[in-house]
């Protein structure tokens, strides 16, 4: 399959680009939500519009009321989300949440999917325990209790956790913390007794929760997939989320690059446009090259993941690391090339820097994924 969008995908891209530039722009969404101290960190009205545009259920199967599309299509949306810094539950709900529920029981799907697809409900995903992404160790524990389970432990960096209807939790149902086996995924309703949220605002103005589970009673129907056999499903959710984050980072990089090169074309010093200086031209050209390579890597990984290729996991790790590197370079060069105004809140480039930082940590930074590439390559 060639590494560019086909006609249908290009049409989708054109539609989504227009929609998010219009409705998801920085002033209308990110700045407004931040300056009004929105406790959700995203606008429910925009989420509803996502649904009206048919985006919320694009990854869900047609039999589940979705569009049955793939990661290439979801990535098109995420790239524009990244470019516009649009706060939305798309990545956690429509990509990770929907992926988690794809093979769940009809009851579970029926309970959560229609609300997400309608743009009324939101799902959060609780994986991390501690400040760094280390899903190889899961200590959060669900003990068997009668026909159900009793969940105890703590999760961190649960994006939009306090706004979610349900939290998808990776918990240990057997074995010790570092075991690959013995994991189970649960869909925990937000009003379950014993769920405690400490919701915090992050550097990019998003909201995330530290969640404590104190003997939370769950019935057997809240289990997603197999008891003790959740690792494979968790990896599937992680791959979808990581690749989605990579696509969003590619969008952040592209957005930061565009406003920076525009600045180079308008700002004058020493009687000339600063874009005439070779010192800046070469850095901009290098950045262009890194962003192009990141874009190519992201679409390759999307195609591999959609095709169910055995190489997908490796290329997803490469994509998350490479898009992270490119995006980080784009925002750092962006602020530096803006000079003093790059440090001001008035200019948008600083907002890109903040978003990049949050996305870099989300589901593993470039060092985590380089390590993953090493492991998957056999060293």
């Amino acid at each position, binding site marked *: 399959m*060639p*590494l*560019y969008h086909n006609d249908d995908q290009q049409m989708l891209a054109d539609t989504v680009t227009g929609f998010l530039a219009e409705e998801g722009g920085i002033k209308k969404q990110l700045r407004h939500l931040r300056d009004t101290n929105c406790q959700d960190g995203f606008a429910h009205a925009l989420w509803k519009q996502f649904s009206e545009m048919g985006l919320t259920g694009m990854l869900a199967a047609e039999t589940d009321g979705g569009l049955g599309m793939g990661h290439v299509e979801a990535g098109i949306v995420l790239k524009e989300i990244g470019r516009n810094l649009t706060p939305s539950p798309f990545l956690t709900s429509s990509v990770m949440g929907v992926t988690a529920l794809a093979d769940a029981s009809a009851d579970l799907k029926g309970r959560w999917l229609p609300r997400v697809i309608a743009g009324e409900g939101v799902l959060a995903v609780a994986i991390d325990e501690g400040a760094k992404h280390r899903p190889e160790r899961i200590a959060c524990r669900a003990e068997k209790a009668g026909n159900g389970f009793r969940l105890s432990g703590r999760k961190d960096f649960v994006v939009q956790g306090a706004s979610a209807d349900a939290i998808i939790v990776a918990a240990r149902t057997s074995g010790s913390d570092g075991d690959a086996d013995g994991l189970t995924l649960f869909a925990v309703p937000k009003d379950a007794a014993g769920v405690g949220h400490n919701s915090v605002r992050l550097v990019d103005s998003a909201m995330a929760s530290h969640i404590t589970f104190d003997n939370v009673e769950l019935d057997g129907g809240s289990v997603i997939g197999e008891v003790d056999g959740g690792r494979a499903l968790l990896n599937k959710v992680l791959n979808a989320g990581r690749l989605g984050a990579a696509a969003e980072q590619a969008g952040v990089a592209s957005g930061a690059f565009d406003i920076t*090169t525009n600045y*180079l*074309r308008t700002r004058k010093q020493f009687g*000339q*446009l600063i*874009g*005439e200086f*070779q010192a800046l*031209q*070469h850095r*901009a*050209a*290098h950045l*262009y*090259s*890194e962003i*192009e*390579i*990141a*874009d*190519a*890597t992201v*679409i*390759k*990984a999307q195609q591999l993941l959609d095709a169910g290729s055995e190489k997908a996991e*490796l*290329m997803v*790790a*490469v*994509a998350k*690391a*490479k898009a992270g*590197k490119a995006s980080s370079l784009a925002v750092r060069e962006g602020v530096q090339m803006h000079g003093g105004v790059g440090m001001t809140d008035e200019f948008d480039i600083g907002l890109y820097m903040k978003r990049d930082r949050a996305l870099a940590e989300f589901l593993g930074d*470039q*060092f985590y*994924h*380089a*390590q993953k*590439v*090493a492991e998957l*390559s*056999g*060293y």
Partner: protein
Amino acid sequence: MSDLDTFRQEIRAWLEENCPPEMREPVRDDDDACWGGRNFKFKNEAQKQWLERCAAKGYTVPDWPKAYGGAGMSAAEAKIWREEMVRINARPPLSSFGIWMLGPALLKFGTEEQKVHYLSQIARGEIRWCQGYSEPGSGSDLVSLQTFGEDKGDHWVVNGQKIWTSYADKADWIFCLVRTDKANKYQGISFLLFDMTTPGVSTKPIKLISGNSPFCETFFDNVVVPKDQIVGQLNRGWDVAKYLLGHEREMISATGGGDRAGSLGASLARHGALEDPVLRGQVALFDVDALAFTCMSEKFMDEVKIGRGHPAQPNMMKYAGTELNKQRLELLMSAGGSTALEWDSEETEGGALPRSWLRTKANSIEGGTSEVMLNVISKRILELPGA
């Protein structure tokens, strides 16, 4: 089964039957490559067989028209051919500046007679070509070149000097940029072809820091070139040159560049050379970049095939690919330790690694320096002011 699936099966079967086992070993250096030409000495029978079998089917240049020695494959078929070659680690049957550089220029600018004559020779590996571009005073500023062809009616008389002519001492013919109008800088250059055995042509190898001499100085002393050996129009050779440079940059990014299959870390680990955790980390970060670049190469080729992608994109590929390759050899040297310092021992195949390491330093100089590539990206792709 689709036509392409059938095609893939045919190719796979043909390769299985016709590609000798020796030709499925990795190419270690330029010596392993088959360059063809009048004076080429095949390394072994397998190399000769492999070239002959491929040439007979047009597989040395799969996407060239059959009339010019190719196999007439479509873009999709040629991609399958490459994939099937990679699948069995088959070596290219023929490495050739004729295929990579002159061929595409002739396909675009050549006359029908020139195409039939020169392209078929290239496809069969009969004539080895070299490229006469750089001059002692004209490196990055190539258009300032001085080698002059004086109009003598039915021929030119060429005088001047070229430098960095790759394998000029082994080449049969040269494609050469010659000034034919001293008053016009850009529109005063012609693109000429001539036989290296023409009286007045001489070459002198240049010894490099690697100890090898892949490049020559090439001298022209009253060299007679018939008028029908021009490609494109008189004084419009710069157009041909620029077009060809695009292909040269693609070639360098693909062969001297970073587009290597396989993980550097995995191969180092197999040799027990990744004990140092900090080096291991550096190698892992490099592998991220290298794998990402393989995606870029694939996307670039896909876009070239349908005419999408910016026409100046080969400059980006050349820049990124060569910088990556230099980094790769730096890491190999670090992993190799003092063994990688040995210059001529038998155990190290005559210092193959340190010589390759030094050779890669030229990757970001030859065919346009990295700095020139960045200039071109700034000017033509980013359209930055005054660039």
